[in-house]
């Protein structure tokens, strides 16, 4: 096998020997003020950098945890020549992700050797709320690695919906890495370091970068805005409600298997181009009718508060909120559609411009759900003819399965696949 074991082992050793930050981080005991005190340079450090999200746990991080400002989504094709190399590659991803998310110090190596870390974050790697969420695409479960019998029951290759214009080069993939952190440099460093020990196991298929709008009020609960100027995420289910999350997100023991999928969730990613020049030429009232909300406050039309119930029951003819408004079609708020709800955790993207000189901006739509067919796909089919379709074009993405989290530092995401 050709995986660079030496590099991988060297890194693990470096982290184990680093002490301080890394060791305390692994136990999750160190508060943010202590983390700063333990830093060799307490002054001149952005305070948020010490914020740490545990890597190990029942659920993978980056799903229920708050979405920090920056993200990169990396789709990988498995090129490992055999099953063992694939397993070692996945093991290396988890191991390196754990080090980076929990913080570590880079030991000084012999000057003749390439440094074990690129050094773009300095010699002390602060966690910066970094999460690395690892998920698998349907193609991983073909005949290459003998995993065909282990494919999650609800995992398919995303088929285009009407009005999609999917670019095959920006779709699907064997493994999806969702990398989120507070700062862009943390995300970029993580992408670079994660790929280094797994070059012979995985090849880049596509990537997309995302960002969050700042919290601009008026209240701490106010949702952030998307490229259309509307608040996004208002209708999300409460991630603090464990019973609800078990109903809407987590694959349970009673669900179609296989057994290794218990505790995981299906991840939908859709790169949705938003034609912002066109949108900016639409009257405000028409924009609000397409969405179903007031642009400024985010309140449902006819309401005053963002989180107010839209009360479709008293508006059966759509005189207040049009029957084909986005919020009304996506979540009709009926008993029948209650189990269709999804957890959205999207990011805005901006990646230059197209051949016609139009800004290439949009939404990295990310949703977690327990059953893609019952939830995301059902909602998406209902949205097929919403008036907003003229202003958006889904261009990429795919369906993935994010397995349960890791038990401890010896475990790795996907270990259940090979057990």
């Amino acid at each position, binding site marked *: 096998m050709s995986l660079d074991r030496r590099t991988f082992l060297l890194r693990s050793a470096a982290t184990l020997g680093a002490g301080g930050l890394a060791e305390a981080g692994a136990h999750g005991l160190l508060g943010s003020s202590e983390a700063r005190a333990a830093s060799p340079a307490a002054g001149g450090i952005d305070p948020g950098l010490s914020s740490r999200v545990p890597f190990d746990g029942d659920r993978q991080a980056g799903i229920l945890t708050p979405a920090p400002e920056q993200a990169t989504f990396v789709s990988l094709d498995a090129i490992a020549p055999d099953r063992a190399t694939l397993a070692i590659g996945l093991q290396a991803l988890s191991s390196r992700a754990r080090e980076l998310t929990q913080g570590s110090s880079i030991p000084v190596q012999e000057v003749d050797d390439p440094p074990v870390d690129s050094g773009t974050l300095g010699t002390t790697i602060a966690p910066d709320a970094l999460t690395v969420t690892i998920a698998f695409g349907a193609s991983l479960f073909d005949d290459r690695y003998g995993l065909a019998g282990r494919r999650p029951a609800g995992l398919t290759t995303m088929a285009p919906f009407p009005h*999609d*214009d999917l670019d095959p080069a920006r779709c699907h993939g064997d493994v999806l890495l969702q990398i989120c952190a507070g700062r862009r440099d943390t995300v970029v460093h993580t992408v670079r370091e994660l790929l280094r020990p797994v070059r012979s196991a995985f090849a880049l298929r596509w990537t997309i970068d995302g960002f969050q709008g700042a919290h601009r009020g008026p209240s701490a609960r106010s949702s952030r805005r998307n490229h259309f100027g509307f608040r996004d995420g208002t209708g999300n289910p409460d991630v603090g409600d464990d019973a609800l999350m078990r109903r809407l997100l987590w694959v349970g023991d009673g669900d179609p298997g296989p057994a290794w999928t218990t505790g995981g969730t299906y991840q939908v990613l859709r790169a949705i181009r938003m*034609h912002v*020049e066109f949108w900016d030429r639409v009257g405000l*009232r028409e924009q609000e009718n397409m969405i179903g909300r007031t642009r400024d406050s985010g309140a449902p039309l*006819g309401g005053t508060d963002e989180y107010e119930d839209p009360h479709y029951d008293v508006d059966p003819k759509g005189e*207040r909120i049009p029957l084909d408004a986005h919020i009304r079609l996506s979540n009709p708020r009926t008993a029948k559609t209650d189990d269709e709800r999804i957890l959205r955790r999207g990011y805005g993207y901006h990646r230059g411009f197209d051949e016609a*000189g139009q800004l290439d901006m949009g939404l990295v739509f990310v949703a977690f759900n327990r059953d893609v067919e019952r939830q995301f796909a059902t909602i998406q089919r209902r949205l097929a003819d919403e008036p907003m379709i003229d202003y958006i074009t889904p261009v990429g993405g795919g369906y993935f399965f994010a397995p349960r989290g890791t038990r401890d530092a010896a475990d790795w995401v996907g270990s259940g696949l090979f057990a």
Partner: protein
Amino acid sequence: MTRPLPRTSAGVLLGLTLAVLAGGCGGTSGTGRSRASATAVSTHPAMTIAGTHASAQEVADAAAQKPTGAGPRSELSPLPTSAFTRPLARYRAYAGAQADAMQGDVARLAAALRRGDRTAAQAAWLAAYDRYLRLGAAYGALGALDDAIDGTPGGLPGGVTDPHFSGLHRIEYGLWRGAPLATLVPWADRLARDVTRLRGVARTVAITPLEYATRAHEILEDAQRDMLSGRAAPWSGAAVMATAASLAATEEVIGTLRPLLDGRGDALGPVQVEMAQLAGVLAAVRRAHGGAWPPLTALRPDEHERLDGTLGALLEALAGIPGSLETTLPPTIPTIAQQAR
């Protein structure tokens, strides 16, 4: 659905300034600069709003809670629906004539495919596509017939091999990628049948005033989103020709609406200026490429940029049209509490 009244945007102003500097717009450049005062908004006094005995201006004044006859008046003076009768009749006749011409193009396409003449088939295909785009304003109202004639493979599970991928672009895909011409004959025959239906539909299609006013800018919005980006006709590269055809359709729609737009605020002037600008840029491109529409990939970067920018400025101007042609006042949105009572 309603739109607010137009605002003259910075982009339009820049376009106007350039037009005046270039002196290339004939008599149209002056009209857009004179922003009509609120009291000068046209009233069409003889017409009444459907369901009322009031003129459009009286209804607007009432809505704005202004005493009738006292200025300044609201700019929101809706047009009676009947004002669209003649423009729509004129447009339907135009669209029908385009569909008739397209039938001939498609017949020539099928004949060229049957005798194995790829060059003639490509020329006939381009003519048919040009005709369909010149029909412009109708396609939003054509639904499944539009998908059959002008559908693209993006949203289909099988992509270019999907059995539902048909019409102009299915033939384009084969014609420019070296498919045996005989394999395209069935698609051309099917297209001919769809165009026969189109000839009838184009003359009778129901279009609301709002849809028609909206089409004035959506035809070219599609040109910018789908054509100049290379998405719509990727194999033939016919984006520049397609943009010119879309401009022709827009000119026709605006021409039919001109009696309504004259004297209604400041929307028409900038549109005429910017349409002339785009026509000028397209003509210059055609001249520079030996008198024929160049494929998108043959455009020089500066040509592409100028086309994109001029089209963008025209679209900013066209965005003011729907708001100038409202037939109803924007309805007041009831509150949740009001509905709950």
